[in-house]
């Protein structure tokens, strides 16, 4: 990466990155999956869950981007996984073990069914 030379360059860079991302505007078929990977998440097994999700999505041929993120604050429900289906609001699942991860993929992502254990988002963002 070459250095950002000015504030204008930074602004341009932001637009570029923002487009690549799908915050609020998911790309057409891509499933966005985030795994809470702060210490609390990792301690509860998030690494394994992430690995499992990657393998399982590959296995099931789901076009998914799986990334790590920080902590949403719901420590009681770690590990946490957030899934954003195309054209949908993100949904957060708590207490995710391998069984639930499988269910998230098979029931929620593939079948589009609602599954139990959804954690309601209880906060406003700075943009709300």
């Amino acid at each position: 990466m070459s250095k950002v030379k000015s504030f204008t360059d930074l602004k341009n860079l932001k637009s570029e990155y923002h487009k690549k991302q799908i915050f609020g505007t998911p790309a057409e078929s891509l499933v966005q999956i985030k795994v809470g990977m702060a210490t609390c998440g990792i301690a509860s097994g998030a690494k394994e869950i992430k690995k499992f999700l990657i393998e399982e999505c590959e296995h099931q041929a789901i076009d998914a981007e799986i990334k790590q993120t920080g902590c949403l604050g719901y420590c009681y429900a770690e590990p946490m996984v957030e899934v954003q289906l195309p054209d949908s609001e993100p949904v957060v699942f708590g207490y995710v073990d391998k069984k639930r991860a499988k269910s998230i993929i098979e029931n929620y992502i593939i079948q589009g069914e609602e599954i139990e254990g959804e954690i309601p988002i209880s906060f406003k963002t700075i943009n709300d």
Partner: protein
Amino acid sequence: MTDTKKQIRIALRNCGLIDPEQIEDYIAQDGYFALGKCLTEYTQDQTIAEIKESGLRGRGGGGFPTGLKWEITKNVEADQKFVVCNADEGDPGAFMDRSILEGDPHSVLEAMAICGYCIGADKGLIYIRAEYPLAIERLKIAIKQAREFGLLGNDILGTGFNFDIELRYGAGAFVCGEETALIHSMEGLRGEPTFKPPFPSVSGYMGKPTNVNNVETFASVPVIINKGAGWFNKIGTEKSKGTKVFALAGKINNVGLVEVPMGTTLREVVYDIGGGIVNGKEFKSVQTGGPSGGCLTKDFLDTPIDYDNLVAAGSMMGSGGMIVMDEDDCMVSIAKFYLEFTLEESCGKCTPCRIGNKRLHEILEKITEGNGTEEDIDRLKVLSNVIKDTSLCGLGQSSPNPVLSTIANFEDEYLAHVKDGKCPAGQCKSLLRYDIIEDLCTGCTLCFRNCPVGAITGERRAPHFIDQSLCIKCGVCFEKCKFDAITLT
């Protein structure tokens, strides 16, 4: 959960949203815009004015106005100055700083650079405890990326402003969260506080003016710049603006990190956000402010949380630990627990903290062991007040708070221990008493056979007895008895 949107995430805005190891993610969320804006559109004074206007106060516990601190440090003439980020989070149960550093490290780096710009420093240091390996790792990655992008280093964004950041590791001493102790620790000296003044703003790291702010404080800064002081200061109460992150723990259903506007009531945090008490038990107390805070009763549940209200209620904001207790918690034991922590973490420099807290702890131990007297409660109060009055640093000055606040709010529990020899919560083992109710005892000998110390005697098919002098209060008899013939008082 009655209301799901009581929280506003400012300091935690990117946690759980972005990949902390990708600077691109941060930039996509307007990352480093605040720095760009300050460097290109604001003078140092304008930036400081904006922070002052926002009403932001130190989130590490002290609540000192951040903008004012920056201004003081800026106004000291020196050939070199430093920006220090205090990431020595040490309150038991508090982990908001770790969470920010693990989830959004760039927000802290950006704010430190802004601070450096304001006060005239080109060097930032993050004092982080070595027990936070993941946070350290992510900070290292973030610093590396920021340097690669030219957002740290020389001539940032082509403005001629230079600023770089290094990490310094702490060994997890609680007292090193105190800024003078922190600076000594960074200098390679024993981590113990020195008398203020001089304040670090005047003479800090290496004797140079040093602006020390906590992680959460820094994390709020870019938002203030980007959205404006006016946006920020609309949130909160008259004297405490913005939001505060709390680490909810204890007997509460939704253990975790919450970020609420200043002025949210304890009730809203405990019940609406925290989901109430585990197993539907009765709320007894909430302890705020970490080991040096106080325990508040249900009478304070409707108190809007801000710096001043908490102090007025006999507790403090601290770094934002919030521990909820229910009817099963013994407040004398709670006070003792907190004091154990301060005892371990006292640096030992001044007499009241080094020896006074030890004596407080011994008296509490005496009470929980059933040997306390009413005079002991008075001694606790007198000694606590002397410790508050004479200790060198904030740790010592606030260390008796859990004792004083539990005596103030739960004196009947103390009296029950010393006068009636009872622990109302049933937590103090020495004060428990198991008895066999003659009428209900069938003489089945089950208790007799299970008692590990041979404290139970009695003939088969005749009532049994417990020899109190031998009983070790293990409770096995109580559990084994099939006829509810054993009482616990």
